């Protein structure tokens, strides 16, 4: 199935079949990683702009790596080194990019909806690399890819997302993608961090960590940044770790095959204990590797790439 759309702005917009075909393609790219030559020169001569209006290391490097392995020409815009800080409107930014005739825009922005706005005014493809607290679709895809590698079909599987749901774009993309694939999603965090009405997205809310993890097949643990909270939504990192931290003790309460994920970067011993972060139940580095594959697949498919192109490579 060819991805027949201009942009990928969120998992909210994607059909289940589209998600699955992106993941299938991602697996093919993932297989290429073990070859001596990991590049696939299918984006030669095409220009991808990475517009990062918010600091990001992991996602930006992952996108860059994906683009380089596809042999795309890459331009990086950082917030600090562009006119974005000076209060240029998004429309001006968009029109400038339009004039430069780029083929694809990868955008990270602090404002929810920024990628949607750019997608509306730009003729080129737009991939949302995180917009405010709204969505982070490639993170959602790589999380789901990682889950699928271990659990197979996600229908009926229980995923518990733990942390600051209100401020998390990772949580929203996970919720949309997982519910579309039939997984049962439970959200767990302090009531001050679980936004009202979120259960209407078809998820269960649970404030008691032990209960939230007891039946889970996967824990997806979100990064906590208490210092960023304007109205004090939680007293301290220590209290957070005590009530919601994923410790070895919590992990002992999991089903035997259940595992722990984290989108990174981790605050060790806040939302996740170091022993768990380095322990046998986590798949954090798999997520990182899958992230590159997912981004390669998405860029490739959005550029009109043939989903069967790498089929022969699988056998090697």
């Amino acid at each position, binding site marked *: 199935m060819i991805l027949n759309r201009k942009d990928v702005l969120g998992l909210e917009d994607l059909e289940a079949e589209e998600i699955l075909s992106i993941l299938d393609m991602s697996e093919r790219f993932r297989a290429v990683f073990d070859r001596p030559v990991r590049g696939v020169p299918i984006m030669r001569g095409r220009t991808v702009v990475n517009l990062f209006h918010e600091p990001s290391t992991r996602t930006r490097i992952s996108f860059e790596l994906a683009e380089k392995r596809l042999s795309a020409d890459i331009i990086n815009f950082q917030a600090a080194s562009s006119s974005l800080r000076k209060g240029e409107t998004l429309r001006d930014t968009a029109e400038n990019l339009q004039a430069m005739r780029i083929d694809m825009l990868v955008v990270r922005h602090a404002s929810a909806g920024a990628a949607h706005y750019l997608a509306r005014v730009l003729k080129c493809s737009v991939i949302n690399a995180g917009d405010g607290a709204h969505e982070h679709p490639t993170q959602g895809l790589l999380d789901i890819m990682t889950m699928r590698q271990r659990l197979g079909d996600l229908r009926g599987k229980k995923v518990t997302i733990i942390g600051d749901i209100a401020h998390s774009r990772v949580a929203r993309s996970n919720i949309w993608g997982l519910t579309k694939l039939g997984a049962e999603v439970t959200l767990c965090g302090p009531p001050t961090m679980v*936004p009202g009405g979120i259960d*209407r997205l078809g998820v269960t809310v649970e404030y008691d960590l032990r209960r939230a993890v007891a039946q889970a097949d996967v824990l997806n643990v979100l990064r906590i940044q208490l210092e960023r909270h*304007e*109205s004090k939504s939680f007293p301290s990192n220590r209290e957070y770790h005590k009530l919601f931290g994923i410790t070895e003790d919590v992990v002992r309460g999991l089903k035997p095959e259940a595992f722990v994920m984290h989108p990174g970067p981790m605050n060790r011993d806040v939302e996740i204990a170091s022993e768990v972060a380095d322990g046998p139940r986590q798949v954090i580095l798999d997520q990182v590797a899958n992230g590159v594959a997912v981004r390669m697949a998405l860029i490739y498919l959005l550029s009109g790439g043939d989903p069967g192109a790498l089929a022969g490579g699988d056998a090697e």
Partner: protein
Amino acid sequence: MAAWSWDRISAEYIVTNVKLCRGAKLSRRKGFLHVRRGVIEALGSGAPTVEGLPRLDGQGLVCAPGFIDLHVHFREPGQEEKETVATGSRAAAAGGFTGVVTMPNTVPAVDNPGLVRYIIDRGKEANLCRVYPTGAISPGRAGEALTEFGSMIEVGAVGFTDDGSPVTSGALMSNALKMTRMHNVPIISHAEDLSLTGPGVMHGGYWSSRLGLPGIPRASEDAAVFRDVELARATGGHLHVAHVSTRGAVQIIRRAKEEGVHVTAEATPHHFSQDHACCRDYSPLFKMSPPLREPDDVAAVVEGLVDGTIDCIATDHAPHTATEKEYQFDQAPFGVTGLETALAVGITHLVRDGRMDLEHLVRCMTEKPAAIMNLPGGRLEEGSDADFVLFDPDHEWVVDPDRFHSRSRNSSYCGESLTGKVVATFLRGRLTHRDETGSP
């Protein structure tokens, strides 16, 4: 019969063939309005008996008192790129308004008699509608002390408010309300608990959770309305609650009125017709304060208007430049324009939906707001100034921001099809607006 000319309206003329909207009664029979030197000389049903005067064929339009809006932002002085008293007056006339009450949150704030007089003078220069300024409650709207109410009233201030921001200090609000007992003008409350609003940019609920935008809880308004109502009860002052948007606020006001507290209230067209789902595409055209709430809040606001808990409709006309509204949702300023769509939104969402009759809607835009601020007008009566509007309650039109007379275009109804169009507006008998697309 002398030939009618729109361009040269004589000192004395008769508008014929109109349905007169007087008080609670919309005449089914066609009637006439006789204007002489800016004053209503006579009016009634049937054909006029006086001969030899120029006549304007009203073509069966409704003839109502000129509308009065208790809540507009004309941005002058200081933000003339958004609107001026002149352009705002032009928009008002286009919306059928003959009187508007301006908010004092200009730059600098209208907190002294000089600026009150300045606004009035600018209004007279434009001469398209009556411009009634309010003054700030506190100097610089800083919420720290009281302004000179008496001196501002002397030059024409009709009420006081720190609109745009709440009066955080309960003690200051209490004193402001006490003052109204000797001054006989209302204190207009922008009811908001800023600590609850926090970084919020839209209503806090399902849609803000889904869109990942910080929410403004209903409690931000409810708690503030409750405080101000209790202060009005305690002081005996006249509290006017601006832009009511929540079910809770409607209930608090309803109960207070039943208990005899001197409280009046207004609601905006957007709060009785649109809800938070409008924000789904992140368009800043739906960003306003207070925010668009939930469907049951919209229903409660409508109910409040129907049963009189909410006395009147006010637009909270809040112009912003196109550039400002091109920022991302969370960065764009709060506010939408409203003067040029108010009647049509009322007809479309209240009258056609069967919630209230046209007479009631007209009263919510004429005599009721006039009574709250002790303003002249609001009724069609012999001997009163000839401030009136002709409108077609059945005319369907599509809102085209390029056709607005306001300097700004940030309407939340752009592209929407609405019913009811102002055809002509008259101030003291003089034509201030004529719709080029409509009849006659």
